[in-house]
């Protein structure tokens, strides 16, 4: 399977080609080149997946492969960064997801970004991102993952800030990078601690002997928790940052300032699930520290509810989708948190999480691309500018509806199956979290249909000045493709391919959980229909009735303000400025003081060196007389 290296090299080559030639290429040529490169990549990924999942099982497990492994940088005898490709069920699954969505976005962008300044640059960045993301998922060791982790961070930064003349986009890109960078600091420290004790970066070695970290660091504690827990919690912090978990989620809604296809690719389907993937990758290690898994569950659950509530009141359609993404990723995180690797059944959450990752990537990409088509048509992100679009954009309407049904968890769409597995897993572990997550699932259905109705129903637009029209073929084609995938993905026997210990797991529906969740979802949809089908003032009334709550939710519970306060008021004004002042006035002042004192003293004594010869004679005479007198007195 050595050819898999081309899955990475091809996008890299595209990035270099498009990036270096830039405007020397015609936009159309650049776009087609990039898309072609991605197509080949996708084909290779599918072929790999085909080969991987059709190979014979060994001990009931698909054997993993490391077709490429090259020592990149050696630190010590044990520690070295390798760059390689590691194929196991989840990485192959991720390859398929990433290449599929990326290809769709490449095609879609041909239409969406048509005529934009910097079209070539856009494709170059897309290729860079694809390369980094693919490198991340096939990483053979945790440091390789960190490398590509940073690279996806940068590509995300570059793509969010694609419209670099727009102040909001610049601020958003900066925020995204810095917040994730802060999280990555935790990741890095976690890696350092982990590798210090286990003496390896390698995933295979780490997961083969997951308790090494415990045995090696036995007895070492910090603030009441064992060092092993700290290491894993810090690594999770990195994942939480990338996956926008509360309270590191603040960058994701702002990241919507980037071009919409980018949001679909990076901030919905692929990069943001990197945190989930990281935890899944290190899952055996996490299993030896149950307290960290509990932490993960809690963080995920809080995020899920928080994001769902906020999503209910946002008016910018991309923001709604962003919070919905956060909420859905939190589902995956919770699923991982409740899983364990003791047996297949306890590991249901792991499988469910991966399954949801897969289906979510498809339908969320679809939602974003649909939203892109809508924005393309009405030139605004605000719900108030929309309404009644179903007549003008039939394809977008249908595909969007399919995606909404999927995310709301209505059978037979894919979201139902994966979400149901998650709820089953959570319920299995703890009823409290199970009910909690069911409520979140209901909220999901509500806000998605609120979005759907506000866009496509609500009121009839006045078409006096501008008639919205359906998007071109390059944009609708990906929509249709993804909609088809969304419809059928639920029937993939996912448990056969991916499970916690690699053994095939047969998915079966837990009827009580499934029924409950369907009922909740349907009720929520009906509520949304009642409120938003036709233009009325019910939502306004409710808003007024709960004005404090509504305002708080609308302002995302003031988390951004808290961050702003901490960064600007505390860090900038209380740390940076005093340090700069201290440097200029105290340290520099001390140095200047030495100089000034020297100068003052010399200014004083330079009067003696007056150049007046008579004065000198005076001094010489007085001096010599003094010396003489003293000498004489001494001799007496």
């Amino acid at each position: 399977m050595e050819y898999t290296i081309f899955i990475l090299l091809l996008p890299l080559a595209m990035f270099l080609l498009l990036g270096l030639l830039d405007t020397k290429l015609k936009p159309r040529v650049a776009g087609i080149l990039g898309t072609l490169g991605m197509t080949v990549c996708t084909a290779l990924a599918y072929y790999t997946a085909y080969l991987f999942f059709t190979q014979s099982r060994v001990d009931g497990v698909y054997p993993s492969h490391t077709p490429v492994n090259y020592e990149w940088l050696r630190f010590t005898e044990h520690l070295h960064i390798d760059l390689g490709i590691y194929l196991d069920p989840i990485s192959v699954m991720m390859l398929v997801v990433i290449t599929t969505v990326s290809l769709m976005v490449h095609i879609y962008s041909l239409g969406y970004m048509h005529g934009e300044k910097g079209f070539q640059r856009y494709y170059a960045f897309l290729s860079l991102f694809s390369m980094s993301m693919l490198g991340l998922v096939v990483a053979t060791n945790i440091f390789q993952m960190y490398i590509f982790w940073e690279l996806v961070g940068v590509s995300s930064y570059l793509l969010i800030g694609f419209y670099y003349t727009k102040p909001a986009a610049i601020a958003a890109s900066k925020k995204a990078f810095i917040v994730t960078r802060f999280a990555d600091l935790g990741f890095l420290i976690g890696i350092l601690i982990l590798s210090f004790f286990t003496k390896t970066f390698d995933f295979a070695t780490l997961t083969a002997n997951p308790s090494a970290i415990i045995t090696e660091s036995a007895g070492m504690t910090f603030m009441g928790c064992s060092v092993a827990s700290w290491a894993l919690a810090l690594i999770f912090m990195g994942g939480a940052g990338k996956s926008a978990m509360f309270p590191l989620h603040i960058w994701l809604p702002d990241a919507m300032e980037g071009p919409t296809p980018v949001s679909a690719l990076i901030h919905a389907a692929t990069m943001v699930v990197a945190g989930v993937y990281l935890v899944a990758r290190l899952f055996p290690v996490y299993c030896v520290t149950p307290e960290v898994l509990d932490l993960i569950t809690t963080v995920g659950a809080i995020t899920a509810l928080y994001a769902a509530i906020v999503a209910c009141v946002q008016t910018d359609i991309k923001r709604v989708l962003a919070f919905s993404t956060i909420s859905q990723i939190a589902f995956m995180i919770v699923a991982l948190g409740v899983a364990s690797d003791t047996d297949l059944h306890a590991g249901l959450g792991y499988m469910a999480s991966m399954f949801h990752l897969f289906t979510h990537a498809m339908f969320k990409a679809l939602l974003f691309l649909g939203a892109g088509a809508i924005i393309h048509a009405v030139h605004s992100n605000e719900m108030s500018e929309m309404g009644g679009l179903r007549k003008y954009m039939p394809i977008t309407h249908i595909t969007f509806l399919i995606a909404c049904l999927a995310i709301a968890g209505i059978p037979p769409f894919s979201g139902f199956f994966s979400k149901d597995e998650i709820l089953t897993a959570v319920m299995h572990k703890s009823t409290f979290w199970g009910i909690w997550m069911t409520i979140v699932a209901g909220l999901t259905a509500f806000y998605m249909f609120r979005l759907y109705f506000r866009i496509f129903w609500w009121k009839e637009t006045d078409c006096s000045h501008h008639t919205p029209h359906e998007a071109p073929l390059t944009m609708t084609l990906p929509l249709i493709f993804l909609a088809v995938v969304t419809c059928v993905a639920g029937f993939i026997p996912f448990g056969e391919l991916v499970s916690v210990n690699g053994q095939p797991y047969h998915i079966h529906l837990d009827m009580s959980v499934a029924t409950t969740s369907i009922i909740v979802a349907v009720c929520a949809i009906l509520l949304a229909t009642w409120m938003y089908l036709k233009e009325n003032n019910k939502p306004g009334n409710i808003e007024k009735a709960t004005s404090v709550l509504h305002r708080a939710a609308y302002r995302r519970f003031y988390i951004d303000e808290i961050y702003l306060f901490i960064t600007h008021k505390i860090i900038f004004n209380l740390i940076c400025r005093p340090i700069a002042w201290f440097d200029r006035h105290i340290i520099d002042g001390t140095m200047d003081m030495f100089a000034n004192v020297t100068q003052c003293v010399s200014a004083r004594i330079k009067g003696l060196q007056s150049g007046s010869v008579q004065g000198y004679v005076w001094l010489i005479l007085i001096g010599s007389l003094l010396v003489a007198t003293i000498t004489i007195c001494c001799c007496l």
Partner: protein
Amino acid sequence: MNFLSLFVLIPILMMAGLAIARNMKEIRTVAVTFSALQLGLAIYTVFKYLSERIAGNTEEMLFQASMMWYEPLNIHYSVGVDGISIVMILLTAIIVFAGVFASWKIEPLSKEFFLWLTLLSIGVYGFFISIDLFTMFMFYEVALIPMYLLIGVWGSGKKNYSAMKLTLMLMGGSALLMLGILGIYYHSAPEGQPLTMNILEIANNNAIPHDWQYFLFPLTFVGFGILGAMFPFHTWSPDGHASAPTAVSMLHAGVLMKLGGYGCFRVAIYLMPFAAQELSWIFLILTGISVVYGAFSACVQTDLKYINAYSSVSHCGLVLFAILMLNNTAMTGAVMQMLSHGLMTALFFALIGMIYGRTHTRDIREMGGLMQIMPFLSVCYVIAGLASLGLPGLSGFVAEMTIFVGSFQHTDTFHRVFTIVACCSIVITAVYILRVVGKLLYGAVQDEHHRQLTDATWWERLSAVTLIICVAAIGCFPGWISNLISNSLNAIVERLS
């Protein structure tokens, strides 16, 4: 005649060539030819060194040669290189080469400018190839003095103040150093044997008494640390860099500050391993402060060069920090950080010089949207920024990660905790780099006059591209250079333990 001496000889010839050059064209021809020659020689040295090593030469220093210079004090002109000096020489050659192009249009007195610049490079090369303490010190001084004139004459802003401050502070460092070197010399050999200035011999004799090491180690470490911008002796750096002309900033931040790190390593730690282990915690605290403090200071500066100068304080602090960890990996990281910081900060200063040459301001509040006006320079600036904040694939990442991983392998918890503190700088670095990039390059054009400005000329492009290629090359293929350094470090680290 040892071929290492060519590193001193070629610049001398270059000076002669410059002296007889009559006009700008000839000056440029001479400067480009000879700097290319130096670069070629540096690359040749690397290959020759590697082939010697592959051939199984295990001497600590290769290509040694020695010539009696002053008998009463047993001072020799002795040269020799190991992997570390090789890397530093390569760095110097690259930056001198790029610096020549960056000062293509220097005015006035262009001939004198290049003369002094060359003299400075003589000092730097000489310092890196010397293995005799006194010769090393002499070259060190040769490198420092031209700085005064280069800043004082061709600088900008409050150049007299800066030049004076820089020179005086560094001279203060040399004074400590002179004391330290003499102290080392008088204890360089066991009782009854002839004293020596040769670094290798001193290290082999290992005769400096422990109580003297306690006294001499701080002297030499601080002496070199001043040049390495160690807190609280870093204040020459912001003013000095801000006032210096482009090529001088490049050379100074890129190479001259490395003399500090290299000297700390080669003289302070190598010759006094005992004190290095005992006293490292004090300097670890100071350098740890440098790392974080420099980064925080950079966050609120508004002058581009100040931002970079503080960023250099932070990055060079990391170099000294890693050296003090006294293990192979961290020290390899330190040398790589020197290399990487040298290249990227030279790139930064070159770009700032080019931007300043067009907009005539370095205040980020007065500029904006440069990406629309000069895309090439802006893209280069972004790349430099990304290298600085440690993007994988560029040199900064490799160096920083080697340092962090290496430092964290230290057996002492105190050192590990400090490593974590130093790690925090990567976040702060991201903050100030992105702040500049956001304000300077993105957004709307602040000053309508800037719209008429042109993008980079060919020589500016050449200068920037040379540096970017090196930064990316190290970032993508760090293995060979890391091996080169760490193999040379093996012997030294063994001596430390």
